[in-house]
């Protein structure tokens, strides 16, 4: 197996863009990544595209060649990956395999979602399709409802408080307010979160990630060629993908994500690192409780202590392990299929020292965790600065 590096990153802003279609967003992100990598589209050997629900959101199937031809790729394999909110994380994992195995030397991984052209109840219905539609879905579970039930159980077993959940939203909005590409660039207060519109008790609108349009892309090559493309490459130390039950009621303990624990443990082993050696992380905060549990599952704090850990400031910029310096899905936005690769772009920006006001002091090693559904897919990636 060859070592692999990320030599180009590209993103569109995340937000509600009524005048932009899915393809133009995806092409913009790919073009940005190719420019960063000094790669011509004609050199690209394969295109892996993460997208959750383009057919439902915009009525378009066959998305990878649809985007790939518009981006200037010529006759190469173009394939869409779908693993709910971990779609582009999964695309990255498979693209990495192809380069590590020596099949390709230049690969583009994209992610895209165009969500805001649908009404909120319709979006809730489409997103619910990432759960078990014959069971929990039929009973009326939305994604906020599934994570609300996870939060309730975590609060019951570990004493996690409503305020500790809110602390995640407050922190991530404080970070996202400084991110020029974030969807909701505004700070929120603890009082605003607590008094927010109820979505699914105990979660208010401020505990939920945003419904966004946006696209992301990275270019990966073998490590031995990386410096030729971009001296500011990032080395892929580890990338792992795991799975678990889709239905929440099939899991024995919903206060943890077994797929996250397994993906994290495998990734640490692959990288030869412990959680203490990670300088910063982008965790999948689709809901505030998800960041708290991921911080436990990945070993940044002990089981059950994710709430106090978040409230202590340990996960803020300047804290022991800065989490979601980008603003996270909470403030930056969550165009579902674009999120996994977007996290990698955000980590690479930090590793390069390009994160501006959000820059962390120690930025040699970053971890990204991308979750699908209520924990049925997880992709963990560890990147190191060049």
């Amino acid at each position: 197996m060859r070592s692999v590096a990320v030599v180009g990153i590209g993103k569109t802003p995340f937000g509600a863009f009524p005048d932009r279609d899915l393809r133009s967003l995806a092409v913009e992100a790919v073009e940005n990544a190719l420019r960063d990598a000094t790669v011509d589209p004609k050199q690209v050997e394969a295109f892996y595209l993460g997208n959750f629900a383009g057919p439902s959101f915009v009525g378009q199937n066959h998305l990878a060649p649809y985007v790939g031809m518009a981006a200037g790729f010529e006759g190469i394999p173009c394939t869409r990956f779908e693993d709910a909110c971990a779609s582009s994380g999964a695309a990255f994992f498979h693209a990495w395999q192809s380069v590590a195995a020596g099949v390709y030397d230049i690969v583009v991984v994209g992610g895209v979602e165009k969500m805001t052209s649908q009404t909120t109840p319709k979006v809730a219905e489409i997103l619910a399709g990432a759960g078990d539609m014959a069971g929990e879905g039929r009973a009326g579970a939305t994604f906020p409802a599934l994570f609300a039930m996870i939060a309730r159980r975590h609060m019951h077993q570990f004493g996690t408080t409503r305020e500790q959940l809110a602390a995640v939203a407050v922190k991530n909005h404080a970070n996202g307010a400084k991110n020029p590409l974030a969807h909701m660039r505004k700070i929120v207060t603890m009082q605003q979160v607590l008094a927010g519109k109820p979505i699914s008790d105990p979660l208010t609108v401020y505990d939920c990630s945003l419904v966004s349009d946006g696209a992301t892309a990275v270019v990966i090559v073998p490590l031995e060629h990386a410096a030729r493309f971009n001296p500011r490459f990032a080395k892929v130390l580890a990338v792992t993908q795991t799975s678990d039950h889709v239905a929440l009621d099939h899991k024995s303990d919903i206060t943890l994500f077994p797929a996250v624990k397994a993906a994290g443990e495998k990734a640490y082993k692959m990288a030869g690192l412990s959680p203490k050696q990670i300088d910063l992380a982008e965790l999948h905060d689709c809901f505030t409780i998800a960041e708290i549990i991921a911080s436990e599952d990945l070993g940044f704090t002990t089981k059950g202590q994710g709430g106090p850990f978040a409230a202590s400031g340990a996960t803020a910029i300047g804290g022991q392990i800065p989490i979601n310096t980008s603003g996270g899905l909470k403030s930056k936005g969550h165009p579902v299929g674009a999120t996994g690769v977007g996290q990698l772009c955000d980590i690479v920006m930090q590793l390069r020292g390009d994160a501006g006001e959000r820059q962390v002091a120690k930025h040699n090693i970053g971890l990204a965790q991308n979750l699908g559904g209520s924990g049925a897919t997880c992709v963990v990636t560890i990147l190191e600065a060049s």
Partner: protein
Amino acid sequence: MPTRDGVVYTETVVHAAPEQYAADAPYQLAIIDIDGGGGRITARILNRAQIGDRVRFVEDRNGVAYYSK
């Protein structure tokens, strides 16, 4: 007949419903531990219950189990 009664493992009250259930909102959704090791089920609760409460199976409506405290 095996029982379908059980204990509330976790619950939430859904305010923002998916399109097909918008008329039901707000409604309580729960995961119930069915007595005697009968597994878990995601169901609706007709009158509000909390974690640990015993609930009684009432009826199936369109494939969805409804419970009462």
